[in-house]
């Protein structure tokens, strides 16, 4: 596989992937103000695969978007890939996002692009590579998620599970140092789901990429390094070495 160097990533010292101290977050204003995260403390180490579980509305996705530098941090400290996100500019957050792979529950593929082109939109973010090298990266990742026969298909011609695998390949194609995933296996059958998580785990170990995954899928719990539970905006228990 062709591997490109992400310049933005090279500047960062990845000793501690994510560090969160007393992170709180609110939606709304005045009497409509609602706290969704309440003094969350968390750290994710290199190569760790961490699962986050919790009921709907407990703040999992908000935490994911804050770590993914998609929202501005309101209160507490949040450091991702050695970037302090409190008061970080839009440009800093945009640059940081290039080092973070994101897998969305609703795959969000570009409908006008083929599977290969969708994945290449990820590898296009790697600087210094030619078109053919970026395409090769895309094809390799599509093969890795079992879609080597479907390069040229549009999302409308793929099943829900196949679309999700394309989205996973896209997230991985940019050589991320941190992978954030929101229910990545929900649309996959158990075998494929485990294959994908195995792939993510392998990536985490081999490329020292941390994986933070929101999931309700019990079929993959045994593959995590850590499982966190969240309720009412708090991470109330941590099970290390659960399995």
């Amino acid at each position, binding site marked *: 596989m062709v591997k490109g160097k992400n310049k933005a990533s090279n500047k960062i010292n990845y000793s501690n992937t994510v560090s969160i101290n007393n992170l709180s977050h609110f939606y709304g204003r005045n009497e409509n103000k609602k706290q969704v995260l309440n003094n969350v403390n968390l750290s994710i180490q290199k190569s760790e695969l961490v699962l986050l579980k919790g009921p709907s509305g407990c703040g999992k996705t908000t935490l994911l*978007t804050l770590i993914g530098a998609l929202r501005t941090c309101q209160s507490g400290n949040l450091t991702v890939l050695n970037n302090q996100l409190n008061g970080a500019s839009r440009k800093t957050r945009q640059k940081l*996002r290039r*080092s973070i792979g994101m897998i969305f529950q609703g795959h969000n593929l570009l409908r006008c692009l083929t599977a290969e082109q969708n994945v290449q*939109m990820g590898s296009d973010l790697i600087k210094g590579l030619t*078109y053919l090298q970026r395409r090769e990266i895309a094809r390799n990742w599509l093969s890795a998620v079992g879609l080597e026969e479907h390069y040229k298909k549009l999302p409308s011609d793929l099943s829900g599970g196949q679309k999700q695998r394309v989205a996973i390949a896209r997230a991985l194609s940019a050589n991320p140092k941190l992978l954030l995933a929101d229910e990545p296996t929900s649309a996959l059958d158990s075998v494929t789901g485990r294959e994908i998580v195995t792939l993510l785990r392998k990536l985490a170990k081999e490329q020292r990429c941390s994986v933070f995954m929101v999931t309700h899928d019990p079929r993959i719990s045994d593959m995590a390094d850590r499982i966190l539970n969240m309720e009412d905006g708090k991470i109330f228990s941590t099970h290390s070495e659960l399995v």
Partner: protein
Amino acid sequence: MNFSFLKFRKIPLAWLLLTRQPLRLIVAIAGISFAGILMFMQLGFRDGLFDTSVTIHKLLDADLVLISPRSKSSISMSGFPKRRLIQTLALDEVEKTAPVNLNYLLWRNPENLKTRSILALGFNPSDSLLLNDGFSRKAYSLNNPGRVLFDKLSRPEFGPIEEWFLSGQKIETEVAGKRVIVAGLVELGPSFGADGNLITSRETFLRLFPANPRGSIEIGLVKLRKGSNPEFVSKILNNSLPNDVRVLTKNQFIEFEKNYWKNSTAIGFIFSLGALMGFVVGCVVVYQILYSDVTDHLPEYATLLAMGYKLNSLFFVVAREGFLLALFGYLPAYFSGQILYSIIRQSTRLPIIMDADKTILIFILVLIMCMGSAGIAMRKLVDADPAEIF
């Protein structure tokens, strides 16, 4: 040729976004083309009408033209002393001159005997008046008194002169109440000021219009020696001749006439307004297409922002869509314009042509239309919130 840039090309996202829905793309192209055609037609009519006012001006065989400073246009020419034209021969650069009388006289239709105003030009048949091939041979016949050359492109109200002449019939009629014989046909074309034209000798002209002093002319044509600079010579002459005459280059004389019609009539305003309407229609069409395109793809744009793409790079995608629409919309408009111009030329004899100025101007207008609309549609992109896609 170096094609190394192709090695680092990106996925043509703008193109793929546009072509994903072919029907919408066709509607967009049709809308832009319609706006383009509208602009081509309006500006074509405007320029065509202005060009008709200078049909004769363009045909004059001269590098410099002398007129009276009191002249406003071909429909309002004043006389100046003929000796001013002779004085120009003092310059080495001047090769020859030709005095021309010009006025509106009443032509009697030989068929129904009704009279109508016609533009009459009087010159010495031995001089060179027009650039037309074969004109000097026809002009020779004007040496006989009472002979005129009739403009066969004149409006039909002057009578079936061409038809009768070609059938070999002798055409006798009256101009300003005096008998004339049509000795030949020329091709000049009607203009704003004149529905028809005739050319005759100065002698005949002065006989038809005896009120005109013999020593007074309306136009003085000056032909310069090869290699002379008309602008430079006109400056010298303007400085050296008295103030009762004004020296223009041929192009300045053409502009002098056009400016009169531009500034003294609403034609320019009306047709420019028509072109503006086309521009506005095009803006609305392109904006609607691009706005709905951006809205439709907003979650996808948000995904790209979440992946680390810059907002500016997404702006460029929309801008490229605008550029592609401009290109695809302009080409059909250009070719349709060519066809329509040809039809109009044949049916109305209006000199409506697709010149480089118009071609470039309308492409720039279409480009501004599409890029401007894309710029407004880009504001919607700011609504793409990557945090909302999780």
